[in-house]
């Protein structure tokens, strides 16, 4: 294994930076995510403004790869619509499954593309994907809430 591929500058910086690690004042939803094999546990917080993810943050503990992954993800989806965030998560997860992606898709991932090499390290794939699975779960729950809201009216 080439450690430079795993611990690149972007990953290192995001793993140390705590700029997305805090509670939100008024989160619309808080969703837990965990990796039972290694004990990583995070909570992802999203605040929505209609269909837009107005703000996002996380709390909890995890390895450098999962911390970097969640931090990069939050930077990426902040200000995006729920639908765009879902698309990005699906692209990211496809990348970690080593599926071939076109240039446009890779560009949409921005800094998250730096996690591509983790796909070559089976022991660490779950560290990188856990935050994105948690994001998908959060979006699903927000949309379910949406549905009930409209039905009630």
């Amino acid at each position, binding site marked *: 294994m080439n450690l430079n591929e795993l*611990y690149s500058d972007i990953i*290192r910086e995001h*793993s*140390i930076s705590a700029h997305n690690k805090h509670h939100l004042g008024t989160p619309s939803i808080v969703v837990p995510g965990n990796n039972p*094999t*290694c*004990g990583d546990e995070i909570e992802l917080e999203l605040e929505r403004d209609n269909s837009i993810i107005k703000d996002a943050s996380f709390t909890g503990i*995890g390895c450098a790869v999962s911390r970097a992954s969640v931090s990069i993800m939050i930077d990426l989806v902040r200000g995006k619509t729920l639908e765009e965030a879902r698309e990005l998560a699906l692209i990211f997860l496809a990348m970690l499954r080593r599926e071939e992606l076109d240039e446009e898709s890779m560009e949409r991932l921005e800094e998250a593309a730096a996690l591509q090499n983790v796909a070559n390290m089976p022991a660490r794939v779950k560290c990188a994907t856990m935050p994105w699975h948690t994001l998908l779960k959060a979006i699903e729950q927000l949309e379910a809430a949406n549905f009930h809201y409209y039905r009630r009216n």
Partner: protein
Amino acid sequence: MQKKYKSDFPLLANRMDNDKPLAYLDNAATTQKPAVVIEAVKRHMEYNNANPHRGAYTLSADATGIYEDTRIKAARFIHAASENEIVFTKNTTEALNMVALCYGMEKVKQGDEILISIAEHHSNLLPWQRVAVKTGASLRYLYTNSDSEIPAEEIRTKINKHTKVVAITHTSNVLGYRIPVGQIVQAAHAVGAVVVVDGAQGVPHMPVDVQALDVDFMAFAGHKMYGPEGIGILYGKAALLDEMEPLLLGGGIVEQVTESSACLLPAPHKFEAGTPNVAAAAGLNAAMEYMQQIGFDKIRETEDQLTDYLLDQLRRLDEVEIYGSRHYGIAPFNVRDVHPHDVASILDGGGVAIRAGHHCAQPLMKHLGINACCRASIAFYNTKEDIDRLYDSLKDVRRWLGL
């Protein structure tokens, strides 16, 4: 001298993907296999393979011979009174579940107490949790103190007239601490409780005498003592095995079957329905022979020296925190501000294999106040160079993460 052992293990000579030699320090998870074990499995498949206890032909008799000879060797290995007290299972987990389901579920009643330690592997915890939930018994714990040891006082107060089963590990798979089995057996038997010992981390590393210890059940596995995966052992006192019903029913365990009834063979055969893993038994047979040729005196001396050296080296690093105070072959630790998985990945980059995570002992992690940790565990084939390479890689961990 130590180099000699390493050359017995073909895998240890391999280079990793990055062309680094391997320093294998995850022996508490599984041990590597010496050439004599690999050869024994191959020989069985090439010359002796047939279904044991069934065919009326030479090959089947050969397979039966290997299987039953392994049972006799295993009985001698742990000083059981008879080979009929040796039940083959697929691993330690299956053996422990067998005791919980076939003995615990039958004997434990509402209001009784099952006592385990906080240092149990999940395989000696979940089965007893289930027995407690289903029977209405309470599950109690022996807790370790600040030195990560179980004080005598704890044993004295927790074992009482309600205690029906005490299930404890011989050596903790996380702390490397040896539980005072003798004291526990004495206290348990005084109140009529049976003692189940998880010997997975004990039997491979020191002579264990089940009669001298007077334990009622003990479980261990071939793959942690240089044999193949797929074979484990449940030792049980003959009188206890006799009164237990098997977990699985099927072929190979009966004297006679009618449309409405079955008469089972006596123990241990009644517990071994279905075609067994004879190749693994052949491998375990060779593994026990190999260990006995080296001798436990030499194995212990080497492993004790390596353990001391391992701890000395870890202590030289300020950023490393070691858990527990007395260790036998196992050192749990963390690197300051670094998640164990990152430590393991960085060490892996240097060809050093250790375990990181909760080690199937989540309640113990919580008791220690940590989420997860790293674990280096040695076997007699390890060398000081392996530990030096661990030390060298550990020194670089924080730098890799920009700390």
